[in-house]
């Protein structure tokens, strides 16, 4: 209970106006490998700027194939990785230069849900461990009974029975149960931001819906901003308000999820959407022509070209000479592709400028009335 009060008081200081919780400012992450005479530089994240804010708190999806940089982006936001270039700001302060108390606040308020529901548990401890440590560290309860109550409340909140869950070792629970316990931890902590990296990709289909619905509840009812990292566009569509499509470190398209998925503009997004295996035998994959298998390596695609040039069916001369800028197609859409050069370069590099904020107006109401 104290935690809720704290969160609300912290967020209500910036009453009304949208306030930035976590912001990436021109973040670039370069991973280097190989011997020093033949060093290879891989741009996992390439000059990305966007903001997660609390009024309104939105669910933002980041979609892309493996190696697109979406997971690295999440790790940077969690502070597990310091970016090569650019800044990460928590409530306006650069995370890199934070003092101990600021850092603790950041740790407390920016939480995560991971993909693998097994490796997040230390096999030595019972599942209670992830709750008890958090409660002790962040002083969420003043007594054992209160702590116990908080844990049981959170477990019930994700549709599990505390008596069948607590006091067990992780291997005694099924994958779906383990992932739900992990979501329960977020429910207990009530952070400002949750980074959810493929939270349902290792969970059985029958439980996916339940977990995604809980995420939606966390956003709508508790006003938690969520970054939903996924390779699955259908779940992204169902859960998120806005989406960023990543390809080789670049955000190639971003905007309102409804528009991006139902009317994709960037050739890569089109390819992705066309490849979704729809659960409908009457909507089979259409013929896919002109799309190439990714090449053996990145050799050929230089940093100075459009990253998609070697697979793009619509590539023009310009694409191999320079990297396209982000063009603003309309109020809620940008695409990094020369096809839309006429639309004009974005005025503000921060992708959030092109997000649709309508999605969770009710969420800010929700937390106000609480």
């Amino acid at each position, binding site marked *: 209970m104290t935690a809720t009060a704290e969160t609300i008081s912290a967020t209500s200081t910036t009453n009304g106006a949208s306030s930035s919780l976590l912001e990436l400012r021109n973040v670039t992450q370069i991973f280097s490998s190989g011997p020093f005479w033949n060093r290879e530089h891989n741009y996992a994240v390439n000059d990305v700027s966007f903001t997660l804010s609390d009024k309104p708190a939105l669910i933002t999806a980041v979609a892309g194939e493996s190696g697109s940089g979406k997971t690295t982006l999440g790790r940077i936001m969690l502070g597990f990785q310091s970016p090569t270039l650019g800044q990460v700001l928590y409530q306006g302060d650069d995370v890199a230069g934070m003092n101990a108390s600021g850092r603790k606040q950041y740790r407390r308020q920016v939480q995560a849900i991971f993909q693998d529901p097994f490796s997040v548990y230390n096999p030595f401890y019972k599942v209670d461990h992830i709750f008890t440590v958090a409660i002790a560290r962040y002083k969420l309860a003043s007594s054992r009974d209160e702590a116990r109550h908080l844990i049981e409340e959170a477990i019930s909140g994700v549709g599990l029975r505390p008596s069948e869950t607590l006091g067990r070792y992780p291997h005694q629970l099924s994958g779906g149960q383990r992932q739900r316990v992990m979501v329960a931890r977020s429910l207990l902590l009530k952070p400002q931001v949750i980074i959810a990296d493929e939270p349902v990709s290792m969970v059985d289909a029958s439980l996916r*819906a339940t977990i995604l619905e809980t995420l939606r509840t966390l956003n709508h009812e508790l006003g938690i901003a969520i970054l939903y990292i996924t390779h*699955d566009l259908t779940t992204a569509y169902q859960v998120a308000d806005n989406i960023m499509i990543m390809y080789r470190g670049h955000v190639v398209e971003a905007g309102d999820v409804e528009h991006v998925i139902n009317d994709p503009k960037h050739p890569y997004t089109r390819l992705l*959407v066309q*490849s*979704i295996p729809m659960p409908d*035998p009457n909507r089979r994959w259409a013929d896919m022509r002109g799309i190439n*298998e*990714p090449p053996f390596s990145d050799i050929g695609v230089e940093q100075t070209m459009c990253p998609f040039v070697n697979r793009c069916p619509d590539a023009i001369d310009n694409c191999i000479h320079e990297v396209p800028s982000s063009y603003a197609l309309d109020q809620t859409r940008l695409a990094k592709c020369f096809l839309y050069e006429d639309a004009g370069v974005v005025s503000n590099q921060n992708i959030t400028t092109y997000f649709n904020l309508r999605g969770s107006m009710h969420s800010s109401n929700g937390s106000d009335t609480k």
Partner: protein
Amino acid sequence: MPDTVLSIRDLRVYFNIRAGTVRAVDGVDLDIAEGEKLGLVGESGSGKTTTALAIMRMIKPPGEIADGTIQLDGRDLVGLSEPEMRAVRGNDVAMVPQAAMNALNPVRRIRNQMVDGLRDHGVNESRERMEERLTTLVAQVGLNSNVLNLFPHELSGGMKQRVTIAMAICHKPRLILADEPTSALDVVVQRQVMETLEEVRSEIGAAVILVGHDMGLMAQFADRIGVMYAGKLVELATVEQIFSNPRHPYTRLLISSLPDTAGKRRLQGIPGLPPSLLEVPPGCPFMPRCPEAMDLCGVDVPELLGETDKVSCHLHTEAATV
């Protein structure tokens, strides 16, 4: 009516562990016609992978095929000796594994691995003939013959999976078992690999059992779908039937829980958990989670009934028997 390639009757696979007997597959009947594409879906622990492994006779202790017959072109695989079975694997039934990177030896070139695969099954030809064969095989799965010179780590995930498909089809098997062949791949590559699989399948006229949990992939690929739950086949019908008119409550819930991109809606999961396969309760295994359960369901196990579209559910028993 095309010939039946594979005919499974009352297949039971049990794992004898410390705590008792796990009935991983508990009485499955299944027929697959020549050239048919059957999708086998279910959540983890439903017995779909175990069924596929049983067909390959690759159940490892403490598991065993406790009962039943698996007839491939009229020949019962369960009764074959291990050397006889070794000749069947690869030649008549081939497998496309789930994780291509684990199926390929990381320190050998693709060429050598494929040559080994051919030699193991008695193909012993001159260098030139062999090379010709390999080039044709990799071309069939849409790869350049350059890949033969490469090591697995030099290939992308999709290319590796294509190599395993090439290895699976090299003896023109009657039946291909594909166990979640694309679960580790991205959507675009997944689609390309599945299209390749379909191309080579129709070329050699093999039947395919696609094991997986992705209903979307099943809808794209399969002719018929078998839905497994707790070691039993609960519904077996054409893909159109399954998606447009699912009859078993489990299938119905499974399909309605799938996210799509045609408008946002509240996502509905299936409440509860699959039962323990250790102490199988009497009656229908889905009963505890079933929104339409009746008294009868708690005492009597429904049988899989029906002509072409089969379902094992008491809601349909009368209709089916009449």
